[in-house]
């Protein structure tokens, strides 16, 4: 393929990226951000997948089997911890205006300048080779695509090298999107959109190749895997044997778990560019899904490559591109190239922005500020110098990477350099994780840990590669430093059996952690450190309230602060920011002396722009500070703690009050309900009293007014009066009884009662009534003697009540029966009649007081309407239950239970 076409495509693709980025910024201006979205956020984390994933995984799978998966398993595991760990880091960085990992570490450890510098240098040393690797991937893939010979190492043909021009365009792009605004902690809308877009492009391209190989060159997965199984080289790779190295697996998984958080590009995308913490929730599952998809076709491509191209001598790292090339799929080849290009560029862009921010904020800007004795007062005077520094840093990084690629990198595979970078950034893990969870962690500890880890890493990972390139005596690898055997870089202290990366990771982390922890435990901390430790570890508590406590003591003047900010932001914006902050926190601006909170705020704003280290220098240049003692800091922290506790207490109290109020409302409603039922009850009782009273009065008046009435009639009226009077007194007794049971005044007079005889007695008492209607009565009780603990009088009352009801409802010459049934719960007593039954809808209602009175169509000539209600109360008091089984025209069966002893 023509070289020109390849370059044109690459440039066209970069143009497309510009378009995407511009579109995102355009949307933002319209107020409809496209990156304020969990999916875009999750996709932008796909920057993890570089050219190493794109080309290198296949290479690795072809030579080492499924070991390549380890670096995707690690991040997948870590994704599960995004919410507890990453969210905390995000919260800290947002509240503290932190724009890089160097800032994070230096601010945590008392805004320490040297820590920031060390972290920055480690990042540069660790990552620039990794960027170089991406450039190499671009030039390699371009060479394959165009069929050109290797451009070779060295700088001889530099102007004939496409990579040079591509790098130039990249510098331009990165400057345009990464170094436009002065505040580095601001979001880069266009950048995030472009990176998310790149994630899609590389995924689609790799899947396209996968499909092409699996279904185009082979007959699907079955075919490719069975053919692979027949291939001796491949077969060996996928058999568990002694060569399967579990240490390597564990090492790689742990290493990549740390890398997914601490790689500068990951930190930048996941923390600095994060818009909302809740986007993490999407990322937790989408990001692992993305990794799964992008690695899905690695094995088929690796197998296909080995089977088809294994003997051609093509480097396995290039199978992804070589396969479509060899089989004439021109368009797919080009698309594949673009996919790899996007994988490489996304990494280069983000990594460069992240590291350039660190370089300019932590090294270049402080130098600039120090050298010129900046006390400058001017409108935005410092804005451009600082932006220029950042632009230059970007250029410098790409330039260094380019040189590294040309001079050193040609000797390594994609994967090995990547892993070395992983191991480098892993050195930040103890200081950062310790810093956000462990208040004891100290500045000196962090410094010691990082330095020791850095040196070990350098010795075990970098020195060998330098030696191998011939820059220094290669003897060091085999014989150790100064010929000391225990210092061999690949087997420190004689340790064998680990591959070089795991070996480096193991020793550097071990030394790092030991140094970090032990020095932290035995070092003094400055007041500033103690304060920052508290803020970081308890960030969720601190970020929940405004800055009510400051640990700054000294004198500062508002105009000074104002002009300081104006240097970077311009007069107008500086003034606006300060006034807004003062209004928000109710700080008076009338005094000339600045409130400590204003000083702290100004420093944070500056920190976002030029890094915490430089901000510290700037602020102290315009203020007169006094040293705070540890005691003072502790006191401030204690006070803030107390305020928090008080607040919490208040909130609790108000919740309790609300609860109490709700309860009162409930009680009031209950009282009203009770009142209402009482009214209803009273109404019904009086109603029930009126009817017999009416007859009594009528009959008495008749007897009184008609003295000449014949004797028989007279007797009739008189007995009527007697019956109605009885009915009245019965009703009154029932009402009083019910009241007694309901109010709980009734004490049960429990004794051992022979149920059998009690039943017989009850039946005997209603027999006369039954005989009147010629009703037969049956008693079916087993011979066993049932002894029941109950109140004999009350149970007797229940029985007679139910029996007299039965008599009432049974037809003339009907039948009633009583029976006892023993089951697990206790005894069941059944009282049955063959009357007209009760419709199912009323089965529960009939146990309500005066149910009959309220439901006229069931009203019977006799009975108060309280009998069943009283029965229920009595059975309730005995902790039994009572109910009815009945159907219309099939009689009724009343059942009550009594617990056996």
């Amino acid at each position, binding site marked *: 393929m023509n070289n020109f076409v390849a370059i044109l495509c690459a440039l066209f693709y970069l143009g497309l990226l510009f378009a995407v980025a511009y579109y995102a910024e355009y949307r933002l201006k319209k107020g409809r951000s496209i990156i304020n979205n969990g999916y875009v956020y999750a996709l932008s984390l796909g920057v993890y997948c570089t050219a190493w994933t794109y080309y290198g995984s296949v290479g690795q799978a072809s030579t080492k089997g499924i070991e390549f998966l380890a670096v995707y398993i690690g991040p997948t595991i870590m994704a599960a911890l995004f919410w507890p760990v990453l969210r905390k880091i995000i919260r800290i960085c947002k509240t503290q205006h932190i724009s890089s990992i160097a800032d994070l570490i230096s601010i945590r450890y008392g805004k320490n300048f040297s820590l920031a510098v060390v972290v920055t240098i480690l990042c540069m040393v660790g990552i620039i080779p990794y960027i170089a690797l991406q450039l190499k991937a671009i030039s390699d893939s371009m060479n394959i695509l165009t069929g050109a010979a290797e451009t070779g190492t060295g700088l001889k043909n530099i102007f004939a090298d496409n990579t040079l021009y591509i790098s130039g365009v990249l510098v331009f792009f990165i400057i345009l999107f990464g170094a436009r605004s002065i505040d580095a902690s601001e979001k880069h809308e266009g950048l995030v959109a472009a990176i998310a877009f790149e994630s899609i492009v590389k995924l689609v391209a790799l899947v396209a190749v996968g499909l092409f190989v699996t279904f185009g060159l082979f007959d699907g997965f079955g075919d490719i895997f069975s053919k692979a199984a027949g291939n001796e080289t491949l077969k060996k790779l996928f058999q568990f044997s002694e060569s399967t190295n579990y240490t390597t697996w564990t090492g790689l998984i742990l290493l990549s778990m740390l890398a997914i958080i601490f790689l500068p590009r990951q930190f930048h995308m996941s923390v600095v560019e994060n818009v909302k913490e809740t986007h993490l929730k999407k990322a937790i599952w989408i990001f692992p899904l993305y990794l799964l998809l992008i690695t899905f076709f690695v094995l088929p491509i690796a197998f296909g490559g080995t089977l088809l191209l294994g003997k051609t001598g093509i480097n396995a790292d290039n199978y992804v591109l070589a396969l479509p090339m060899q089989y004439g799929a021109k368009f797919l080849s080009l698309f594949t190239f673009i996919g790899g290009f996007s994988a490489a560029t996304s990494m280069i862009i983000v990594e460069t922005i992240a590291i350039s921010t660190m370089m300019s904020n932590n090294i270049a800007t402080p130098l600039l500020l120090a050298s010129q004795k900046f006390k400058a007062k001017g409108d935005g005077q410092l804005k451009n110098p600082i932006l220029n520094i950042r632009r230059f840093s970007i250029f410098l990084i790409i330039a260094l990477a380019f040189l590294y690629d040309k001079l050193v990198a040609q000797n390594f595979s994609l994967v090995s350099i990547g892993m070395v970078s992983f191991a480098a950034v892993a050195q930040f893990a103890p200081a950062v994780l310790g810093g956000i969870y462990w208040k004891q962690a100290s500045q000196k500890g962090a410094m010691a840990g990082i330095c020791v880890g850095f040196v070990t890493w350098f010795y075990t990972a970098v020195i060998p590669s330098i030696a191998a390139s011939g820059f220094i005596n290669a003897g060091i690898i085999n014989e150790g430093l100064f010929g000391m055997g225990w210092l061999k870089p690949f087997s420190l202290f004689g340790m064998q059996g680990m591959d070089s990366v795991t070996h480096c990771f193991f020793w550097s982390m071990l030394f790092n952690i030991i140094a970090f922890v032990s020095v932290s435990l035995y070092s003094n901390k400055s007041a500033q450190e103690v304060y920052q430790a508290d803020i970081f570890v308890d960030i969720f508590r601190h970020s929940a309230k405004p800055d009510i406590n400051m640990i700054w003591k000294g004198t500062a003047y508002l105009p000074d602060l104002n002009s300081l900010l104006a240097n970077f932001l311009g007069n107008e914006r500086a003034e606006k920011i300060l006034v807004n902050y003062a209004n928000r926190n109710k700080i008076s601006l009338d005094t000339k002396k600045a409130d400590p909170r204003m000083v702290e705020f100004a420093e944070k704003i500056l920190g976002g722009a030029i890094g915490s280290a430089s901000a510290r220098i700037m602020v102290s240049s315009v203020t007169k500070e006094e040293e705070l003692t540890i005691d003072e800091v502790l006191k401030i922290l204690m006070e803030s703690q107390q305020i928090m506790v008080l607040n919490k207490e208040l909130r609790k109290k108000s919740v309790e009050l609300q609860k109490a109020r709700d309860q009162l409302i409930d009680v009031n409603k209950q009282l009203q309900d009770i009142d209402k039922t009482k009214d209803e009850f009273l109404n019904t009782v009086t109603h029930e009293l009126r009817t017999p*009273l009416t007859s009594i*009065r009528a009959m008495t008046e008749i007897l009184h007014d008609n003295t000449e009435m014949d004797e028989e009639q007279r007797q009739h009226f008189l007995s009527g009066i007697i019956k109605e009077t009885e009915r009245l007194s019965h009703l009154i007794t029932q009402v009083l009884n019910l009241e007694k049971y309901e109010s709980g005044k009734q004490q049960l007079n429990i004794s051992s009662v022979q149920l059998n005889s009690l039943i017989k007695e009850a039946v005997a008492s209603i027999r006369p009534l039954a005989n009147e209607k010629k009703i037969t009565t049956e008693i079916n009780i087993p011979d066993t003697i049932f002894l029941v603990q109950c109140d004999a009088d009350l149970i007797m009352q229940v029985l007679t009540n139910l029996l007299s009801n039965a008599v009432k409802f049974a037809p003339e010459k009907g039948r009633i029966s009583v029976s006892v049934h023993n089951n697990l719960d206790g005894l069941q007593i059944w009282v049955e009649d063959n009357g007209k039954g009760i419709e199912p809808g009323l089965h529960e209602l009939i146990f309500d007081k005066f149910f009959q009175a309220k439901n006229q*169509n069931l009203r019977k000539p006799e009975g108060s309407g309280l009998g069943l209600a009283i029965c229920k109360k009595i059975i309730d008091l005995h902790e039994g239950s009572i109910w009815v089984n009945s159907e219309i025209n099939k009689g009724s069966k009343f059942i009550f239970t009594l617990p056996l002893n």
Partner: protein
Amino acid sequence: MKALKKILVVDDDPYILMSLEFLMKKNGYDVMIARNGKEALELVEKQLPDLVLLDIMMPDVDGYEICRYIKKTAKIKHAKVVFMSAKSKEADIQKGYDLGASYYISKPFSTRELVKKVNEMLL
């Protein structure tokens, strides 16, 4: 001789029925009794009473229903209706009058007063 005026007494309480039957007869009326709503409707239809003494709460058809029936049926709508009920709430009484009753007397009542009212109405 003029025919006796017909009175229908409707109540589900046997003693009230017995008492009112006795009193109305003694005052020179032709008395019929009904122990529930169904019987009452039949008698109203057949006997065309001049006055109905009507209880409200009864097992099957309630007094209001019977009154409503009387008032909408052409041949008996002239019959006077007297409610006698244990329902003594203002709303219940009002409902009785709204349905066209001539009088509403709350239980327990004086039979002397009731007889006097009936006599006045049937004069």
